[in-house]
């Protein structure tokens, strides 16, 4: 959104009068609050903001935002949002979805949206479970995970959302823990600034059906040691002591310790989110230790709207048709007297 906004909003302007109905302790509250805090910082007009969701716990989100919104049908939010954005490219469009909504029933729309690179944002609440239907395994549940629909353990290997998305040509991918509102707020702002489809995966804890699924990475006590928060142009460094980092060893990423084996900070990889070649971004996405968070990929590319606009302008310029009459009465017509 390029429009300058004179009106100054606060987070309260974006909260609707509807009572929030998620389970107490659910990370969804953190996401909602982060979004309400991020929006006043984006420079968009409130009336230009549209939230479109599918079905699932996350998809109640639009009801809690005092913006335009549509709670759609299961898996179809990307398609609905595509129509909204193509109809009015001036809007700031946000898709709210979950792991089941985006990657199971809506998998087709999800990948095609990413491929097209329409300028909108997807917030993916990944809790590795179906919450609203009360606890079945999802396309991101782990093998062996016991759920209501896999009492003896899940046998279906999971998707990694980032890997799938980048495979589908996502130009922007960020991942963030559901309990880090400050970073999350900033990522929301960055994703709005990004011109193209921006996907933000949130590691969202479901306290009821999959409690603690990300604790090994997101718990305050271990976060600094287990997560590498990447920033464009900065070395890939992590650890409580800021003494760990990543280097490339052949075709593998390797964790090294600064000060050991002659390693200095200069040896560490420097994050380039803007690189077109997704190879390293994919490796970062796949890494299990440390878990990479932050904006992993942010490659500027032409959007679908830009392509369409250019084409429309060219066709209009070359066309003799201005009104439908010009078309209807053109070519092979004849008179009956």
């Amino acid at each position: 959104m390029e429009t300058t906004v004179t009106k100054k909003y606060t987070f309260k302007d974006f909260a609707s009068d509807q009572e929030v109905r998620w389970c107490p302790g659910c990370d969804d509250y953190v996401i909602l609050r982060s979004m309400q805090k991020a929006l006043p910082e984006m420079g968009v007009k409130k009336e230009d903001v549209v939230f479109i969701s599918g079905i699932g716990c996350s998809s109640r989100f639009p009801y809690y935002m005092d913006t335009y919104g549509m709670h759609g049908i299961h898996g179809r939010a990307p398609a609905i949002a595509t129509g909204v954005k193509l109809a009015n490219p001036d809007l700031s469009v946000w898709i709210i979805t979950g792991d089941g909504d985006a990657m199971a029933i809506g998998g087709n729309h999800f990948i095609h949206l990413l491929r097209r690179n329409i300028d909108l944002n997807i917030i993916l609440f990944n809790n590795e479970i179906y919450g609203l239907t009360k606890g079945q395994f999802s396309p991101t549940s782990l093998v062996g995970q016991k759920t209501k629909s896999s009492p003896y353990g899940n046998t279906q290997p999971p998707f990694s959302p980032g890997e799938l998305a980048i495979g589908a040509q996502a130009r922007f991918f960020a991942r963030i823990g559901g309990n880090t509102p400050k970073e999350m707020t900033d990522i929301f702002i960055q994703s709005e600034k990004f011109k193209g489809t921006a996907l933000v995966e949130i590691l969202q804890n479901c306290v009821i059906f999959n409690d603690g699924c990300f604790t090994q990475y997101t718990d305050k006590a271990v976060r600094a040691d287990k997560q590498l928060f990447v920033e464009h142009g900065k070395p890939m460094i992590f650890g409580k002591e800021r003494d760990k980092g990543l280097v490339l060893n052949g075709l593998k990423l390797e964790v090294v310790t600064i000060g050991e084996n002659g390693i200095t900070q200069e040896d560490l990889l420097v994050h380039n989110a803007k690189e077109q070649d997704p190879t390293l971004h994919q490796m970062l996405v796949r890494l299990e230790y440390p878990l990479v968070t932050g904006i992993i990929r942010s490659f500027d590319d032409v959007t679908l709207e830009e392509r369409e606009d250019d084409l429309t302008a060219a066709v209009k310029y070359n066309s003799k048709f201005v009104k439908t009459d010009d078309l209807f009465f053109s070519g092979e017509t004849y008179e009956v007297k």
Partner: protein
Amino acid sequence: MLTEKIEPQIEALEAVIIRFVGDSGDGMQLTGTQFSDTSAMFGNDIATFPNYPSEIRAPQGSLYGVSGFQVHIGSVEISTPGDNVDLLVAMNPAGLKTNLHAVKPGHTIIVDTDSFTKKNLEKALYESNPLEDGSLENYRVIEVAMTTLTREALKDVEGLENKIITRSKNMFALGMVYWMYDRSTEHTIEFFNKKFKTKPSIIEANSKVLKAGFYFAETLELIPNSYTILPAKMNPGTYRIIMGNTATAWGFLAAAEKSGLELFLGSYPITPATDILHELVKHKHFGVKAFQAEDEIAGISSAIGASFAGDLALTTTSGPGLALKGEALGLAMMVELPLVVVNVQRGGPSTGLPTKTEQSDLLQAMYGRNGESPVIVIAASTPSNCFDYAFEASKLALEHMTPVVLLSDGYIANGSAPWKIKSVKDMPDIKNNKITEVKENWHPYDRNEESLARNWAIPGTEGLEHRIGGLEKDKVTGNVSYVPENHEYMTKIRAEKIKRVQNYIPDITTEFADEGNLLVVGWGGTYGSLHSAVKQLNEEGHTNIGFAHFNYINPLPKNTEALLKKFKKIIVCELNNGQFAKVLRINFSGYKFLQFNKIQGLPFANSELTEKFKNLAK
């Protein structure tokens, strides 16, 4: 075989039906289109129907590779492409074999004898050459060595590839037919000049062959002198020949212009609806946003998004696609957004008969969704009125804030007919329910008192931020509501909103008789067949048969029952197993609805209709 010399005769015919058939590569579509265009410009009424093979590149000479084009022209009103033909032009044995059954006994067949080679006869599964074994003795067969004659005509034209020479033999056939029916070659030559502007040798070749065919027919003594079909009495005005699918697309263009909204199409390719997508993608100059989606569901979902954002939104599909769109259509109904869904019906169920026509999606359109989910259903009935009903579907959707299903079918979608061109300025106004200013105590589900349409607040409008969705709404605020009484209220008001559309649509009228022994009832694409059958009977003196054809299915016109009352018997004719009859039974319990159904992927034949009606009307 009639080989004796026939004395020249000059005869004015009321109407004639001609079918051009040949291999897919023989250019039969072009030949037929040229003949029909020329006839239309001469002033005839016309109706045409193409018949393509379903395989994209069927083997040459094979029975399933035959491509055909039927033209019905007349000095009288023509409402269908016709059943059996007066003239068959067969460019190869396969074409003859697959179409002979359609030739009226004693009538004419023109064949290209050069194509009746041993190999082609085998491919057409002929055990002996039909031109020699006497099997065609009931027809007047005109044997012409078209390939040889075409070659001969082009021997002086330099720089032509062999392929182009043999390909232009269809123009030889066309030239002959032009002479036989007293048509000028002028229009077609003009067409060559435009079409091949940059290739003068092709213009020359085609024109030469066309004229060669014309003069050949003139000098050939086997051909009776040319017939003529005088201009038909048609309303004065500017006309063009239009295909049903094109007319549908143009109706939406007109509706967008009239309503001042931008047009959005979300669509996924499916036979026989794809031509609407093909047509609309061309019109970026009018600001049309045509989006080819990843699947049927995304087609309709993107249209719902565009409608939410304030566009005139539509999605196009055929039967199986409508099934996939069902859930999203329910959402559009629930959020009460304007949306047009075009279903160009084809033979079902499942993949069914994709290239054949049928009317078997009526109940799907009416009821194919979960929950109580009424939508407006209307149907176009001729190739040219596809324009009017596309416009009307848009108008109803926008004015009543509801999805509208527009039913067309393969028969009218691919058929073409003259269209008296309509200018947008002559079309009725389209209002919409947009609100642009904040009113005190405003709610997204505030309704128009008369139509019950809710208001349409689009994103970007300051102060009207609101949320909609598939969950049940509170009747006032539009917020999610699980209150039992509210759900019942909302269910009823959604139904009532559709019912009240009756107040905005025209009454149904009868043709030929206002009362009598038999009322013939039809809907949608069968108009032409039913109309001409009842008309014929009427002219033969069966003045007690009336005809009522429905374009508005849900809701039905207000006066429907008043009209049913006036006839002793009612027969509902449909290309399905009786779906509209079911709808009528649900609505009008005191009547006996007889049925006449055909489920062969084919339109009604005149003879089967007239026979049935005659017996019933006694």
